[in-house]
């Protein structure tokens, strides 16, 4: 046996394992060499152009304004703080976009499956239009065509206490007064009680088969308890209402047009993709399942909630995760219409002022990488929770 395998015509070069090893060593050497070559060029170029290295610039004053900031920020603050402001802007718009896009997507996906012919057609037109037009174009459309066409503040469109004009959407701003802690306590308490109720209902159902509408009951409980707490403490919220002055609208909470444009474009665009995912997920559930549920005497709403939806979710969640990731990454297009998110602040202004391209771009990539990883970790956890448990 051993004679054959070590016989002369089987040289080392003909052995698949050895060849793979050689190939990999060459590949690794090439990667290392290219990396070293690029790095040494970088060092030389930076020395030539007098660009400093390292992250010390983050402590220097930035000297540029960031128009939308949720935490305190002035021009005298550091690059590090500007970066942090931009990071918050990115996270906020991504999370709000994800929530809105999911709602739009579910509604549109169900609408495409509606047995109302007209509704299904309208939803199809929505999906096929929005997902075949570049997101950047849609953002430009909302920003430069729609929002820019709104009237000047003097002639704002008024809707209850909301004002709509070129400078954005003005809405009442809730101002917290003394005694609000009581309301928070009531809210937290009601949530704890709801969780207990759901757990109890589930246990009882497993034991006795009796069903209790725990979710509706919890919802009612949260609303009632929070409202009672509000009333008991004498409604400790006051709304700062926007006021129309002669040339402007003052007070209230302002959603700047940049923010609105990015949010609307991101959520309607991603919503179109989510609609298709939802539709495919529901179609993937065998019709026999619905028939079986009906033959058990389940109502249509229960059939959907207990039989179809859990099975559809298994098909929906993985592609839904990628849509959420796409949305978070696409928020970077806000840079094109001056929404101050990471790319605009760090890779735009900071990079231009300091010239530290490698650090700025590296920082941005790191943040997006972390953001993506967080979303996908969360969604994978949810996926595992929802996935088929086979015995």
């Amino acid at each position, binding site marked *: 046996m051993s004679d054959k395998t070590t016989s002369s015509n089987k040289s080392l070069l003909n052995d698949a394992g050895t060849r793979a090893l050689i190939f990999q060593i060459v590949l690794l050497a090439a990667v290392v060499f290219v990396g070293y070559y690029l790095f040494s060029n970088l060092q030389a170029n930076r020395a030539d152009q007098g660009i400093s290295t390292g992250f010390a610039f983050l402590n220097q004053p930035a000297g540029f304004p960031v128009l939308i900031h949720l935490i305190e920020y002035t021009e005298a603050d550091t690059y590090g703080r500007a970066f942090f402001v931009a990071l918050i802007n990115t996270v906020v718009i991504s999370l709000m976009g994800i929530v809105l896009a999911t709602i739009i997507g579910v509604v549109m996906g169900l609408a495409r499956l509606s047995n109302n012919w*007209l509704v299904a057609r309208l939803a199809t037109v929505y999906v096929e239009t929005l997902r075949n037009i570049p997101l*950047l174009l849609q953002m430009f*459309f909302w920003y430069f065509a729609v929002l820019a066409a709104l009237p000047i503040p003097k002639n704002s469109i008024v809707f209850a206490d909301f004002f709509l004009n070129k400078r954005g959407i003005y809405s009442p701003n809730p101002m917290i007064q003394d005694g609000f802690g009581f309301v928070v306590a009531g809210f937290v308490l009601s949530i704890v009680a709801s969780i207990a109720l759901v757990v109890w209902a589930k246990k009882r159902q497993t034991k006795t088969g009796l069903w209790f509408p725990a979710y509706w009951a919890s919802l009612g409980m949260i609303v009632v308890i929070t409202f009672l707490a509000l009333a008991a403490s004498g409604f400790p919220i006051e709304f700062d209402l926007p006021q129309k002055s002669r040339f402007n609208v003052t007070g209230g909470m302002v959603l700047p047009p940049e923010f609105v444009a990015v949010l609307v474009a991101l959520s309607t665009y991603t919503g179109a993709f989510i609609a298709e995912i939802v539709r495919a997920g529901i179609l993937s559930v065998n019709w026999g399942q619905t028939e079986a549920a009906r033959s058990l005497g389940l109502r249509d709403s229960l059939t959907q909630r207990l039989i179809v939806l859990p099975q559809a979710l298994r098909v929906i969640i993985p592609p839904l995760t990628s849509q959420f990731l796409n949305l978070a990454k696409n928020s970077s297009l806000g840079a094109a219409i001056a929404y101050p998110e990471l790319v605009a602040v760090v890779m735009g202004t900071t*990079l231009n002022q300091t010239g530290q391209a490698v650090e700025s771009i590296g920082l941005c990539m790191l943040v997006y990488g972390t953001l993506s990883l967080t979303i996908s970790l969360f969604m994978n956890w949810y996926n595992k929770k929802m996935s088929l448990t086979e015995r």
Partner: protein
Amino acid sequence: MAIEFKPSPSLPPPVNSVGAVAWVRQNLLSSPLNIFLTLFSFYVLYLLVPPVIEWGILTATFEGASKADCTGGGACWAFIGVYFEQFMYGLYPSEETWRINLALILLVVLIGTFAVKTVNKLFLSIGILIIYPVIAYFLFAGGVFGLEVVETSLWGGLFLTTLIGVVGIVASFPLGILLALGRQSNMPIAKSICIVFIETVRAVPLITILFMASVMIPLFLPEGMNFNKLLRVLIGITLFSSAYMAEVIRGGLQAIPKGQYEAADSMGLNYWQSMILVILPQALKLVIPGIVNTFIGLFKDTTLVYIVGMFDLLGRVQAATHDSSWLGTTIEGYAFAGFVFWAACFGMSRYSMRIERKLETGHKRN
């Protein structure tokens, strides 16, 4: 004696279950909720359709040389007419645009010859993938056979959009296959390099890659060696979409049953033979929808080059709407660009469905 059984002719279906009335009752008015939805849809249509038709067609101006000619109160399509050449070719000199058209016609003819049965498809593919790009490059850039040199900074409009899209698609495809094979291989080092590349690229937005291509690549190159911005952007886009392509193809590779790999091995095929002859054809066919989706995504993403200062179709439209003599034509510009992109992407997705049906070899479970 024998009574002949004569079935009487079938009765027609009840009137209220056939015809237009029944259709309306079933599809629009079957329940209170349905009636409400129908009314709601009509309201939405009423809000959207009449104003759009009035603005876009009835009161629109189709011809004219300046904004002053647009007096109808509706859309000013004359704007598109005046800027049409810029939207198509960017700032490419107008007496040289025949070169772009010629290259396009040549490509269409070459692809058309695929339909001719007697032509050797292998040679034709080589011609399209290797010889044609060289010809096209010299046609576009000039500098040979007395063709005037046209700097790439003048390239723009739909021409640039298409160029970036096609180059990105064609170049990322083989790279994506290699990355996917690398990720699936059992060589640890090659595998990890592929995984790191794919995951890093997929975790960051395309804009960061484009910024890297336009700002960072020059820093990494030795003194004096610098290459064209268009080329850098093309490299960035190709690397970006190859990572996505790799994941799509990996999905196909994973879906091939192990028996196929074993069968290829048992035939004595080596790695590349078994991949090219047995595995990849099946895997690629499985993932056609995914591949086309990546292509469509890439085509839409070409608009991002505007952010690093290049003027593709959207960039040109954006620049034109800022022309002071045409102020207020923003919506017309976006409508035009939107329609062009929509037609291209929608067409691509429909075409892919056709290919899918054509390649269907009938192993459907029934």
